[in-house]
């Protein structure tokens, strides 16, 4: 795992127990996040989860009902948006349509009372940084989506903000351009060592750009962790379901001893698995396991359960099989395309040796 280089100029950003109400509804419900200098944190979640609202609290566009936001330890809650020195790039870029590219980039510098030569130098520098030096006199509508986004980025960076906020910045770009821009933003952010929050609903984007991800749901942070930890050990069913794709198998805890739980799956197998703390010693559980961590076998075994094979679809480098368990659950099994052996039908399913399944108590 990579960590961002520590830059002297980079700031910490602390969000402490922030709550935002819209009328009676809680848009953000007691969120706390500590973000390290130069770190990129993704706020990831479905629409309506409060991630954009939280971003707008940091930017100063929305006032929180309670809680604090600190930059380098100093509270900024009392400051209006125009005194926070926080850069933001909007999903639709929000470029000023009546100004040229250069005027857009110069806007923040002028607002801060910078002088002509300084403005010109910085505009040139940041337009070069985003490789748009030749476009300075164009109007935004004369640019492609990717170019507009680079202008928005240059505009936000030109004022040398202490924090950079990115609100779904790649959502409007097509797939290929999106990857290029993600790499470019990451490169810029690292060069400048800017503490950055990225709001996104795209888990791949969060995984590839962020150092840490805060998965949000219904105004709360469900898990705040590195992408690998979030993927491999989701702490809640929501995170488990939201990140990657996974199979959920119902079962019952038969016993817990020595940190290992004995689980009888409804599909017809008994497994011994590491028990997460707080798992009740009896009662229903859900076993979550990624498709690529399941295997198919032609030979039965105690830790295998019988399945009814369905369709098989090639997906990129993988072959994904759909199958049905005895209790009627549909599961997906993914394996390298070339691994499927010929011969007996493989109707027994089980965990692969390197599987990292998760257990969640089943609510009744």
């Amino acid at each position, binding site marked *: 795992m990579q960590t961002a280089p520590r830059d002297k100029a980079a700031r910490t950003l602390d969000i402490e127990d922030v709550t935002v109400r819209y009328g009676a509804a809680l848009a953000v419900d007691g969120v706390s996040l500590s973000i390290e200098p130069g770190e990129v944190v993704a706020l990831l979640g479905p629409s309506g989860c409060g991630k954009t609202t939280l971003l*707008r609290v940091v*930017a*100063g*566009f929305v006032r929180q009902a309670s809680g604090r936001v600190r930059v380098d330890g100093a509270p900024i809650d009392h400051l*209006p*948006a*125009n*005194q*926070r*020195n*926080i*850069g*933001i790039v*909007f999903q*639709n870029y*929000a470029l*000023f*349509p*009546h100004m040229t590219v250069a005027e857009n980039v110069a*806007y*923040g510098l002028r*607002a*801060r009372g910078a002088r002509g030569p300084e403005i010109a130098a910085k505009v040139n520098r940041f337009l070069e940084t985003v490789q748009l030096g030749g476009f300075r006199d164009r*109007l*935004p*509508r004369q640019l492609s989506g990717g170019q507009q986004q680079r202008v928005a980025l240059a*505009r*936000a960076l030109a*004022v040398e903000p202490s924090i950079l906020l990115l609100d779904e910045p790649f959502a409007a770009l097509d797939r290929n351009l999106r990857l290029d821009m993600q790499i470019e933003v990451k490169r810029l952010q690292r060069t400048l060592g800017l503490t950055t929050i990225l709001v996104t609903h795209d888990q791949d984007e969060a995984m590839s750009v962020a150092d840490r991800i805060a998965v949000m749901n219904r105004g709360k942070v469900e898990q705040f962790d590195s992408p690998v930890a979030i993927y491999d050990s989701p702490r809640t069913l929501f995170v488990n379901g939201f990140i990657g794709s996974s199979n959920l198998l119902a079962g019952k805890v038969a016993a817990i001893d020595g940190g290992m739980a004995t689980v009888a799956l409804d599909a017809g197998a008994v497994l011994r698995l590491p028990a997460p703390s707080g798992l009740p010693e009896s009662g229903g559980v859900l076993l979550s396991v990624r498709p690529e961590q399941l295997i198919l076998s032609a030979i039965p075994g105690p830790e295998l359960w019988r399945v009814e094979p369905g369709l098989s679809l090639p997906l990129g480098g993988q072959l994904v099989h759909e199958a049905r368990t005895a209790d009627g659950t549909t599961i997906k099994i993914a394996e390298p395309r070339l691994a499927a052996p010929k011969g007996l039908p493989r109707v027994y399913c089980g965990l692969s040796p390197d599987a990292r399944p998760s257990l969640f108590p089943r609510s009744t």
Partner: protein
Amino acid sequence: MKEGGKLSLFREWQLAVPLALAFAALFLAPLLLLVGVSFYNDEKITQPGFASWLKFYGDPFNYKVIGDTLLLGAKTVCTTVLIGYPLALVYLDLSARLQKVLLFVIVMPLLLSVVVRTFAWIVVLGREGVVNSVLMGLGVISEPLKLLQTELGLVISLTQIEMPLMLLPLISVMSRLDPNLRDASAALGASRWRTLFTVIVPLSMPGLIAGCLLVFASSTTAFISQTVIGGVRLIYLPLVIWQQSLVVYHWPLAAVASLSLVVSVLSVVAALSWAGRRSGGYVNG
């Protein structure tokens, strides 16, 4: 444009033909008639000639009347902008429910006849009207202010009467502005005033100009309000037209005065819309 199937044989311009005919019959023909009538010398419309034009434009008084008419339009435009623009900004910040209420309040004057609105202003501005009773009751003034029969009173009432024409185009353009632009400006360190003058005003210019255009054209031709509230000592072109056509029956002179009103108002309107086109491209861009 490339032509595709059979339907496109029916060219697009043909669809506009009925409208063009109606326009020609209902607008162009009367206008040409007006031009024709203006080139007669006498009331009975028997001797063609330029005498009516020469008489009208040989009298310096009429230049003052034209000037006063245009000035009245300009003043009304100024007051509707000064009050309407902030009101439009307030409108943008309201909740959807309050926006509906405000919109209703804005449109309501349009539902009332201009005669009713005008006579209501007599009650408000009169010597014993609401304004004077309140001010005298508060002891602010000891003598009633003269508001009726003054240009001030006329501009005040025209401001209310014409306000919907300013607000509706303004609100329609402003509510199409990307709200993120204001946030983007603030995040870049701009104060609210800088945001207003460098972002919101330039981008709402098409609506502002459309509003100015409507208010100007409407207030310069508002015969009822001009004569009932302003009285007949304030002489604007519509009064002259009315006198010449319906009191003196000198139609050629009335036609000259009408054409003078049309041309002078249209030239200001044309200048405004030229300015509007120059600033108009950005909003949809």
